């Protein structure tokens, strides 16, 4: 029998038992769609990590205060973070003569504050930094302008708003030129300052250092001058982190070594009171955090895979019933000249049709579910889902393989039936 006729006859046989065929298919549909969706979420969370790390900018070194040799009081005030880095350190690193491979340097101080504008108010992270920040972190203003050198020297009361902060405070209105009140400290004794908005950042989303749309930038010297508890005991200006952009990845080791030497000399310490992290160090920290959730998704996909196997067993069960019910038919077909191969193919194709149709519907359902889940917050976790061609091919291929595997035994049984006994079967 030709393959076209075999398929046509399989479709007719399945259509004759619609309810049974669709219930059998359901097992495969659920299995395939679950595998695709869970793989998509797993893949999405991995991609999210990659994007967040890339979102930091590229070829970055992060210098942070390390083991403190300063007083415990200071550590206590700044949440365990010692204040060993000062802005002068950053300016020293930003020296093309000494460090030709340094492309940009951005020192920063950040703290939590409340912002009030018009009737709206919101809590956000305020970052004091320098104009280099844009280039170093690959994060630019969308409207207006970023902090300029002039703002730095004037210690201007100017602010650049993150994308979401601007929306929260000003809605659709243009915030540029408007005034924002910044409040630090407990509500009853907070310090307040008025800042003029000069720019709004492009939307960026979450990176390894947090949600970059929920920020406000002000000039670093402004922050140090206005907010007394950020002042250094010796009158210097502390910073919490210095980001250094290096021109080429191959310069990382050298940069790390030479910058460390410079800081040791400047701080005049034997033991490093700072630490230098590369982007991949940050990536590793991040990866370790997400590894747990990824393992979880993989385990869930594996469970879905098991349900696919269970669906396959359902198919085998139904095919065995179907063969038993159709023994007479098999006898008739053999009597008119069907070979064992013809009968084998007939039942195998029926099993394959069920699994492949189920696989096809499952793929559509899985892709739809993944698309719906993408970008939503489910159980307080923001879900990223990315359907890959591999997952689709894998799930569909596995369902077809299951049809083949679980269909072959019933089909073989059917093909081996004795035609005379089959003809006289009641």
């Amino acid at each position, binding site marked *: 029998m030709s393959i076209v006729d075999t398929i046509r006859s399989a479709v007719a046989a399945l259509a*004759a038992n619609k309810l049974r065929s669709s219930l059998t298919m359901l097992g495969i549909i659920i299995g395939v769609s679950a595998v695709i969706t869970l793989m998509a979420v797993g893949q999405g969370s991995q991609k999210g990590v990659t994007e967040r790390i890339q979102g930091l900018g590229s070829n970055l070194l992060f210098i942070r205060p390390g083991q403190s040799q300063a007083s415990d009081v200071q550590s206590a005030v700044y949440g365990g973070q010692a204040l060993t880095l000062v802005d002068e350190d950053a300016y020293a690193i930003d020296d093309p003569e000494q460090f030709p491979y340094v492309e940009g340097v951005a020192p920063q101080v950040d703290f939590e504050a409340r912002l009030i504008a018009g009737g709206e108010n919101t809590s956000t992270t305020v970052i004091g930094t320098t104009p280099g920040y844009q280039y170093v972190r690959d994060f630019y203003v969308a409207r207006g302008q970023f902090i300029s050198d002039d703002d730095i020297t004037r210690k201007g009361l100017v602010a650049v708003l993150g994308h979401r902060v601007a929306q929260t405070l000003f809605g659709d209105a243009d915030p540029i030129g408007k005034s924002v009140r910044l409040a630090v400290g407990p509500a009853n004794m907070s310090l307040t300052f008025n800042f003029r908005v000069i720019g709004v950042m492009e939307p960026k989303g979450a990176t390894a250092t947090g949600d970059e749309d929920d920020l406000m930038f002000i000039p670093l010297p402004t922050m140090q001058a206005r907010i007394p508890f950020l002042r250094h005991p010796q009158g210097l200006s502390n910073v919490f982190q210095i980001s250094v952009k290096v021109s080429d990845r191959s310069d990382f080791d050298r940069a790390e070594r030479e910058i460390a030497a410079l800081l040791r000399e400047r701080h005049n310490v034997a033991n490093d009171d700072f630490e230098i992290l590369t982007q991949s160090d940050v990536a590793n920290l991040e990866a370790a955090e997400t590894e747990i959730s990824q393992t979880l998704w993989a385990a869930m996909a594996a469970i879905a895979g098991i349900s696919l196997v269970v669906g396959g067993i359902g198919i085998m069960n139904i095919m065995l019933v179907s063969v038993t019910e159709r023994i007479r038919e098999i006898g008739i077909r053999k009597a008119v*000249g069907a*070979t064992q191969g013809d009968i084998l193919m007939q039942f195998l194709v029926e099993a394959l049709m069920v699994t492949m149709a189920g696989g096809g519907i499952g793929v559509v359902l899985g892709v739809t579910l993944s698309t719906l889940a993408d970008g939503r917050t489910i159980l307080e976790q923001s879900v990223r889902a990315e359907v890959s061609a591999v997952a689709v091919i894998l799930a569909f291929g596995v369902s077809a393989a299951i049809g083949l595997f679980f269909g072959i035994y019933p089909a073989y049984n059917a093909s081996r039936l004795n*035609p005379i006994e089959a003809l006289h079967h009641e």
Partner: protein
Amino acid sequence: MVKLTDITKVYRAGDVPVPALRGINLGIQEGEFLAIMGPSGSGKSTLLNILGCLDKPTSGVYELDGVVVSALDEERLAVIRNHKVGFVFQSFNLLRRLPAVEQVELPLLYRRVSNRRRLALEALTDLGLGDRVAHRPTQLSGGEQQRVAIARCLVTNPSLILADEPTGALDTATGHDIMHIFQRLNAERGITIALVTHEREVAAYAHRTVHLQDGQIVSDEANSSPSRPPAAAEPSPGGDGGSEASTA
């Protein structure tokens, strides 16, 4: 065209061998119309199954159209059944789901013939079922179902039609209609027919009658004057033998 030499068939019921055929020697000439008679258990159905390549003899040689089919494997036997043999059964053995025309196409499907539909319609029309082609077995009378089964044989142009009690499930008048069809196919097309029956009136249509008892041929007689059916009983093309009972 058929030559059976020392054919035996032994079934096993558990450990006990049950002989069904004990040394059958039989030749059937091309164009013959042979009736095989005998009491139940005499081995006549077993003989027919061996003739139709549905079953293999335990020993002995079966030659069909010069081919020693007793030496062939299951796959080759299927091809022989498809090309050379047509079966008609007491219980019609049609597929429940399919309309008449697809029943008739079935053997051609396994032969990968391209103009199946036309050949099937021709065969059905030839048997007076031109207006029943889309009917399923449950919508057909017993006589009509048996004619569909005969059309299923004819469509392959078989050299041998084997009928196992073809009138057993039909009333007498319809039975005569069916027998007349066999007689006509034998006379007009020269198709060799072997028929198993236990009714004398049915066997009377054949040219030759073989009696079996306990797996052996006990008599082999020529019938010089086969029965003729009543002149009016032959179904006209497109018509329906009105007296048929629906026994499906």
